[in-house]
């Protein structure tokens, strides 16, 4: 992962990407016990000059392919991790990217989405594995309820959250 993040940071220095943050299962691992995953989700802002044209990941692919990195379906293998670059697809993901927390992996600086944003994105995505991950966050008590409520209200997710609670949580344990 160290080599992977070094390359991604270099892409940022070279202006190929703007701010980025680790999301998905690897992002969740910042807060939870590690759970098997085969790839890394990197949410990424494209620089303004690139965004003014059609939103495209082509510059990222061109940059990496020119340096010998291989494309495997929707991933690019950097170091020994398949990486999926994901421009934010809605305001929730944009906010999550902007609010990501700085950390490091083996001395390499990086950013991870907050626990509350990871939960909100998982709720919005709503696959079975996303629901399982939300339950892990709640069981480990790493979510600030006030912050999560603020995000849920701000992004119209309260109804989804209520349905999630009805389905998976005891009424007296969900705050």
């Amino acid at each position, binding site marked *: *992962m160290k080599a992977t993040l070094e390359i991604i940071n270099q892409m940022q220095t070279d202006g190929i990407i703007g701010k980025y943050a680790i999301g998905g299962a690897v992002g969740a*691992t*910042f807060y939870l*016990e590690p759970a098997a995953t*085969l790839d890394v989700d990197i949410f990424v802002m494209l620089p303004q000059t690139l965004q003014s044209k059609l939103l495209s990941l082509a510059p990222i692919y061109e940059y990496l392919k020119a340096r010998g990195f291989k494309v495997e379906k929707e991933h690019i293998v950097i170091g020994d991790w398949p990486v999926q670059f994901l421009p934010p697809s809605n305001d929730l993901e944009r906010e999550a990217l902007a609010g990501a927390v700085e950390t*490091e992996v083996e001395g390499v600086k990086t950013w991870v989405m907050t626990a509350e944003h990871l939960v909100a994105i998982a709720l919005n995505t709503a696959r079975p594995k996303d629901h399982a991950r939300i339950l892990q966050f709640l069981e*480990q008590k790493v979510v600030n309820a006030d912050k999560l409520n603020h995000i849920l209200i701000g992004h119209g997710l309260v109804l989804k959250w209520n349905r999630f609670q009805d389905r998976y949580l005891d009424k007296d344990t969900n705050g």
Partner: protein
Amino acid sequence: MGNGSGSSKQDRRKRLASLSFSEKVKILEKLRDRSKKIAASRSKPARALDKPQ
């Protein structure tokens, strides 16, 4: 089959969650490599001796 109670599993999960991100990423890499090996072994064709008569 389990070798511990529910509370010891919970303790183990808490202990793993409290590791540094670097340590957890190393575990993720081991889990990923194990998953890839399992997937590769499943995709190998059966050897002649393994085939049903």
